[in-house]
């Protein structure tokens, strides 16, 4: 899981390059990546005093592009309809916070690593799209990353990310399935709370 998170961060933190057959979903993914890169490289935001401001700005960009509710709903899978509306809202809040804070922590520790991103193409079927990219790290290792998006008005919002062919949603769905098969939903929520970094508001 750590590798997955690292690569997701690498995708967001890396420089962009080639664009092949870029359509609207690719353009929106690229725009978000570029905005986050600008925030990461802004010297004024690198000071300790403005660290939380930078985190908040990056979180806002993530919130615009990632459909946290869809990620949370799909990750909980078949257990989702069994929860009350209040529990579902609570789960979305906790899970999105865990994912976003983990991502922000990695960005804080790694910074914007210079690397290359190739946009390999996109596929749109009705209101769904996938954008295939390829990250080349500094040591010339290539990692395929695929975004899956759903159209919401004019925006394309991410509901899953596949890194090295491994789906983020599938990974969490399997984990939640295992936990809920052995223990209870209350235990899962308690575990999520425990994993969210304490220093964050």
């Amino acid at each position: 899981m750590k590798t997955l998170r690292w690569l997701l961060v690498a995708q967001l933190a890396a420089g962009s390059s080639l664009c092949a057959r870029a359509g609207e979903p690719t353009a929106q993914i690229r725009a978000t990546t570029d905005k986050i890169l600008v925030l990461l490289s802004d010297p004024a935001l690198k000071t300790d005093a403005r660290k939380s401001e930078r985190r908040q700005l990056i979180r806002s960009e993530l919130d615009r592009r990632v459909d946290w509710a869809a990620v949370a709903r799909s990750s909980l899978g078949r257990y989702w309809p069994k929860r009350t509306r209040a529990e579902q809202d609570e789960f979305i809040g906790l899970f999105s916070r865990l994912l976003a804070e983990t991502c922000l922590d990695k960005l804080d520790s790694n910074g914007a690593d210079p690397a290359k991103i190739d946009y390999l193409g996109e596929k749109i079927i009705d209101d769904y799209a996938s954008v295939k990219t390829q990250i080349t790290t500094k040591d010339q290792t290539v990692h395929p990353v695929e975004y899956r998006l759903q159209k919401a008005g004019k925006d394309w919002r991410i509901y899953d990310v596949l890194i090295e062919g491994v789906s983020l949603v599938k990974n969490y769905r399997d984990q939640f399935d295992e936990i809920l098969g052995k223990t209870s939903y209350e235990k899962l929520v308690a575990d999520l709370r425990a994993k969210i970094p304490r220093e964050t508001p």
Partner: protein
Amino acid sequence: MKKAYLEFVVGLFLAIGIGCLAWTSIKLARKEFLVRNGYEVQATFSNAGGLCSGTPVVIAGVEIGRVKGVRLEDYEAKVHMVIQHGVLLQKDTMASIKTKGLIGEKYIELTPGASDETIKPGGVIRDTQPEMDLEALIAKYIQGSLAKPDDKGQPPH
């Protein structure tokens, strides 16, 4: 005495042979029954990883369908599956290709989703996860560990 023993052995082999034939017939008939009495769904994988007609489709380890066919479409693998009637698949069901053991039989695992809507007969499982390419991952790991950037941060030549 010797003749009776010989006849017994021949009879035993014959019985075993008939038993094997019956078992095969039942297995094939079951498979055929499943293929005829289910509904079809499709899924597209970037790498089919050796799937073929007859590959089992499972949910929670229980076989609920079979692969009907695999064909290349737009340089991706389009897989047709037949799913048992009565097994409803949510629209966000995820299909992933798995292997039993390290060198075992391939199968498709379906992980139920959260959507209220279900996939209609002839519909598409939108979310798929291809088979993990272990060879590529191992190669990447080995190459990655050898190809470290030099002291100036430049990639090796």
